[in-house]
């Protein structure tokens, strides 16, 4: 074989390898999934691109002397008609490009020859180009996906094989690249991945043709729920589903969505014995064939778990409060002399026990409230109620503490009704907490002033004391849980350190704000606001009518 023929054989071998490897990669990547999809196409492509040139040369040598049926030049020409080919020298300057590459990029041959190959790559590919050049210099080939930039700035994705070229003495003289446009394949793969994701979703997916109301598609979870295999659901209508599978609510939700003209609706619906959150997308814009995309999220286990949690709270609440009722009740009766006179020492000890039983009740209430907050079960019962009456109720609940500390209580703005839409019992809880704090941290004989004002269509309540105040360094954590845990007075003053954080959740949950001003040594003023009317956000609000009478 002449030197020219050998060179042509080499080039033809590399190109054949590149084309075969690209074809292998494209077809196997589209067919395989999972781990094989990541390994088999690449490994196969590398093997094919490495072995084909050697096989090609050996075959040529075997048939050397015989008249080839198709000459290497013809084969090279043939290959060039099926793939984009370019040759570069050792400086990465283009020395040859075929017509397919010109067609794909929009450049003329004159615009490319002698120019750096990097002009065909998107800017972000520069590091990759350097990496490939290093490999080629070492005599290694490279295969992968590269974005190819066209003259008009658009980019297509190509599956590329690049092999180094050497002269007779083994010196590196450049490289040859073969590229196949896989933009469409990539899009198809992405669409396939989306379809696979939908198919494997834990939630049920239905796609329903709007006109015929027949089910076009069900994913694996949906088919499993109804005991169907493959496409046995084909032709089933929503009406049949409603009749046979107790899911008429889904059909009605679709009809209702269509009637409303909206594109999306989310509803909770019972299907058989299970509870679902149903999301319906009405895909009717920009398409000739309108469809409903229905997603069923099974809430049954979550609902059961929430019920278990609620039952647990209820049980703990009952089991702790019942013995406390007897303890507190007995001590209360003894202190009221219901069982006769007590010695001063006995009375003092009983008062300590009674006060600490009160603390225990508050701790249990706070912990149960925090549990409700953590699990999202802090519900409210909104009704129009008189804030003035709530203040009086909280004053009654704090009367004992106020007497104990000899406090002077002043009230402003509660002589007339102050109507507000709120959860009265929760606001009484907030007021009781703020008044209790004011009493605990007041000096004996100090004044606690409660003021109600009308502000911006709502109401503002402030509870001011002349107590020890809060140091500036503690201001930032005052509404945090266990805010006063570090306070050495806590054991004496009582409380869990949860009260103010609970107040904040309650007030904000009722649409208001809570804040405070304090100066160490001069006292504190806690202020909260409530809107006059609540905007009901669709949350069904129901709530306790429990009253702290202990």
């Amino acid at each position, binding site marked *: 074989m002449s030197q020219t023929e050998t060179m042509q054989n080499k080039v033809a071998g590399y190109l054949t390898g590149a084309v075969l490897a690209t074809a292998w990669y494209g077809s196997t990547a589209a067919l395989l999934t999972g781990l094989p999809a990541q390994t088999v196409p690449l490994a196969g492509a590398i093997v094919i691109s490495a072995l084909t040139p050697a096989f090609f040369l050996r075959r040529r040598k075997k048939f050397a002397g015989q008249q080839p049926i198709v000459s290497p030049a013809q084969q090279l020409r043939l290959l060039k008609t099926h793939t984009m080919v370019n040759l570069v020298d050792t400086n990465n300057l283009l020395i040859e490009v075929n017509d397919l590459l010109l067609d794909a990029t929009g450049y003329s041959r004159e615009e490319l020859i002698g120019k750096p190959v990097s002009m065909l790559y998107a800017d972000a590919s520069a590091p990759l180009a350097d990496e490939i050049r290093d490999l080629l210099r070492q005599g290694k080939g490279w295969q992968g996906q590269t974005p190819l930039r066209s003259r008009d700035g658009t980019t297509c994705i190509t599956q590329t094989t690049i092999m180094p070229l050497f002269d007779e003495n083994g010196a590196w003289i450049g490289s040859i690249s073969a590229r196949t446009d896989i933009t469409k394949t990539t899009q198809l793969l992405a669409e396939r991945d989306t379809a696979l994701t939908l198919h494997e979703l834990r939630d049920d997916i239905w796609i329903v043709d709007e006109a015929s109301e027949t089910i076009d598609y069900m994913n694996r979870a949906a088919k499993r729920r109804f005991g169907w295999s493959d496409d046995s659901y084909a032709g089933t209508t929503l009406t049949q589903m409603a009749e046979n599978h107790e899911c008429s609510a889904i059909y009605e939700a679709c009809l209702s969505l269509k009637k409303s003209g909206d594109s999306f609706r989310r509803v909770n619906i019972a299907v058989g014995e299970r509870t679902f959150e149903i999301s319906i997308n009405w895909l009717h814009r920009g398409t000739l064939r309108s469809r409903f995309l229905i997603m069923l999220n099974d809430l049954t286990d979550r609902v059961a778990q929430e019920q278990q949690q609620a039952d647990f709270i209820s049980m703990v609440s009952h089991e702790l409060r*019942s013995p*406390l*009722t007897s303890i507190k*009740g007995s001590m209360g*009766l003894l202190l*009221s002399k*219901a069982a006769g006179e007590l010695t001063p020492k006995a009375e003092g000890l009983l008062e300590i026990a009674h006060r600490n*039983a009160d603390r225990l009740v508050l701790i249990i209430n706070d912990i149960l409230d925090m549990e409700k907050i953590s699990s999202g079960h802090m519900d409210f019962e909104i009704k129009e109620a008189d804030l003035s009456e709530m203040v009086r109720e909280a004053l009654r609940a704090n009367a004992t503490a106020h007497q104990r500390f000899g406090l002077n209580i002043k009230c402003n703005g509660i002589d007339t009704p102050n109507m507000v839409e709120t959860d009265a019992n929760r606001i009484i809880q907030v007021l009781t907490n703020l008044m209790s704090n004011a009493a605990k941290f007041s000096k004996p004989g100090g004044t606690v002033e409660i003021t109600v004002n009308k502000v911006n269509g709502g109401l503002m309540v402030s509870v001011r004391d002349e107590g020890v105040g809060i140091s500036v360094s503690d201001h930032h954590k005052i509404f945090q849980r266990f805010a006063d845990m570090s306070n050495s007075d806590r054991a004496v003053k009582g409380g869990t350190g949860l009260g103010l954080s609970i107040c904040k959740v309650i007030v904000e949950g009722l649409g208001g704000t809570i804040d405070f001003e304090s100066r160490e040594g001069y006292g504190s003023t806690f202020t909260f606001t409530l809107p006059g009317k609540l905007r009901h956000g669709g949350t069904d609000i129901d709530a306790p009518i*429990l009253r702290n*009478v202990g």
Partner: protein
Amino acid sequence: MIKLLHVEDDADIREIAKMALELSGDFEVMQCECGEDALALTASYTPDVLLLDMMMPGMTGRQTLEKLRENPVFDAIPAIFMTARAQPNELEELRSIGATEVISKPFDPMSLSDQIKAAIA
């Protein structure tokens, strides 16, 4: 004197409530430890007010009230529940079946009589 029927399974709480109410001098207290006993007693006794524990073995306070309400004589008698539970939906249900007031446990024995009188006033 206000005739009050107290149904409560916890003997200690029964004793404390009875002592607290009788101490006020305004109540004549009859007590039962379960709903079944209350139904038997009310065949021959009609109180002015019912004080029912909510969570009792056997018939609950709610079931007891529903049974009592089947008798027209008990249709208008105010019913007050005492509860150590804190489930809002249950309290709503109690109000829907005609509970006049719900008092949470632990209660203050010294203000119990005033609370009941205020509820039935």
